[in-house]
């Protein structure tokens, strides 16, 4: 059996080859169904013009700000819900309800509140991931074995030390899952927001491609969006999950 890289590489080569063949046969018009070479050229063109890099920067900045704030809010919300029963009965239900709301539906309200500004789009990103972070923070705290809390107590932990040295590290496995899910919601919300919104960014670049009737460009940008999503998933969350597995063993999933 050849190495994994070879096997996977062969798969993509075959897919691209088939794609090229179908495009060559011109089953559909080249204005609707691009060829791989055309998409590649569009990608190179957008990289060289600096447009793609600029759009990426804008998108990533929004994401980092929105996602970062959502982690802080989600964590705080999770702590409150997990440690205060009345908050769980009330706020807990609200959080669950809002989590099921597709975050792009916040956009009209955000535009009314903040106008067509960065703040509006960051707000949508924020709403995308806050609630899943909060839900996993709560789950992580609730799942902490009481035995560990007692063990720390008999070793002399103060209340503050209990949070710092037991609750926070103990909730890491649940938080990694929650942050991964939150990230994917934030990323989807951002793309949706940028599509509906006249401002620079990857989603906006997709719109530009449509306006130019340039199917090659639309395909190229979509591929970039996929690549960013996969890269973050592998590089950041893949590593975090591996770290959790090393410490907790397979029991923590």
């Amino acid at each position: 059996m050849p190495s994994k890289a070879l096997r996977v590489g062969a798969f993509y080569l075959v897919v691209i080859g088939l794609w090229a063949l179908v495009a060559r046969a011109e089953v559909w018009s080249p204005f609707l169904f691009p060829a791989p070479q055309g998409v590649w050229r569009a990608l190179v063109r957008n990289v060289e013009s600096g447009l793609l890099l600029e759009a990426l920067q804008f998108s990533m900045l929004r994401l980092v700000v929105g996602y970062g704030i959502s982690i802080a809010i989600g964590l705080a919300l999770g702590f409150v819900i997990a440690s205060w029963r009345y908050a769980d009965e009330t706020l807990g239900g609200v959080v669950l309800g809002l989590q099921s709301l597709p975050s792009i539906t916040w956009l009209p309200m955000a535009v009314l509140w903040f106008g067509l500004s960065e703040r509006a789009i960051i707000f949508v990103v924020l709403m995308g991931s806050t609630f899943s972070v909060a839900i996993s923070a709560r789950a992580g705290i609730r799942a902490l074995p009481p035995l560990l809390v007692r063990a720390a107590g008999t070793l002399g932990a103060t209340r503050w030390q209990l949070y710092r040295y037991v609750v926070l590290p103990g909730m890491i496995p649940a938080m990694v899952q929650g942050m991964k899910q939150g990230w994917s919601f934030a990323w989807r919300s951002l793309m949706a927001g940028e599509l509906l919104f006249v401002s620079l960014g990857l989603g906006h670049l997709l719109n530009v491609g449509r306006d130019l009737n340039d199917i090659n460009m639309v395909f190229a940008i979509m591929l970039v969006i996929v690549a960013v999503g996969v890269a973050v998933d592998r590089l950041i969350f893949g590593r975090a999950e591996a770290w959790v597995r090393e410490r907790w063993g397979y029991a923590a999933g």
Partner: protein
Amino acid sequence: MTTVTTMTARAQPSVPTAPRGGERSPLLSLRGVSRRFRTRRQETLALDAVSLDVQAHEFVCIVGPSGCGKSTLLGVAAGIDTAFDGEALFEGQPIRGMARERAVVFQEPALFPWLNVRANVEFGLKLRGLSSAARRAASDAQLALVGLERFDRAYVHELSGGMKQRVQLARALAAEPHVLLMDEPFAALDAQTRDELQLELQSVWERIGTTVLFVTHNVREAAILGDRVVVMSPSPGRIKSVLPVDLPRPRLPDDYRVADLAAQIRAELASDGEREPRYAI
């Protein structure tokens, strides 16, 4: 760690056992402690006016059938359970909550999975703000004591059950407690590991002369380890009798005197309590 090294290490007991019934005030003193659990369906009197004094440097074993209140008693002594009636004193002060002076070795391996073995052992010292050099020196000593120096960087899920209990013991000892409260620490282990850890615990205890309150429902274990064996009876949880043990240490599991004593404890457990209970404390 082999049995052989354990036995040589144990050669000279450095601290004599406390004089029984002496004039000194006890380290740990339970006076008429009762603990009632109310659930929707029933009410349990887990402890019924239990009185027990433990002297400094003493090794006291508690035996009794399942559900007789052994863990409840230990929880009261540890300060984990504060909802009891009666008086629980430690070093003359009422017990109000958990404190590092009373370290606990739990029946289940209560180790922190996100920390490696060394960091688990150093946990209590870190809470006290000791420097990393001081922590390291302490954890080196404790890991050597329980024979785990080669596993200092392992994570909890990589350890066997016996190794986890050794780490718990090392962690408790590193906190330099005044009393060590142990709740059936070896119950989940195979007979051989259990024998080994019993010997190890005897040797550790003789070397550092700490005070131990040890819960078990294994009568042989109680006979091997205890200066006194407290026999409890269930529903309601009471102290049935207290047996002093005057066998020389080290006590080996196959010693006939240990076996005799174990039989005596077993008989005490089985007796129906018709006669006057001896609250000889």
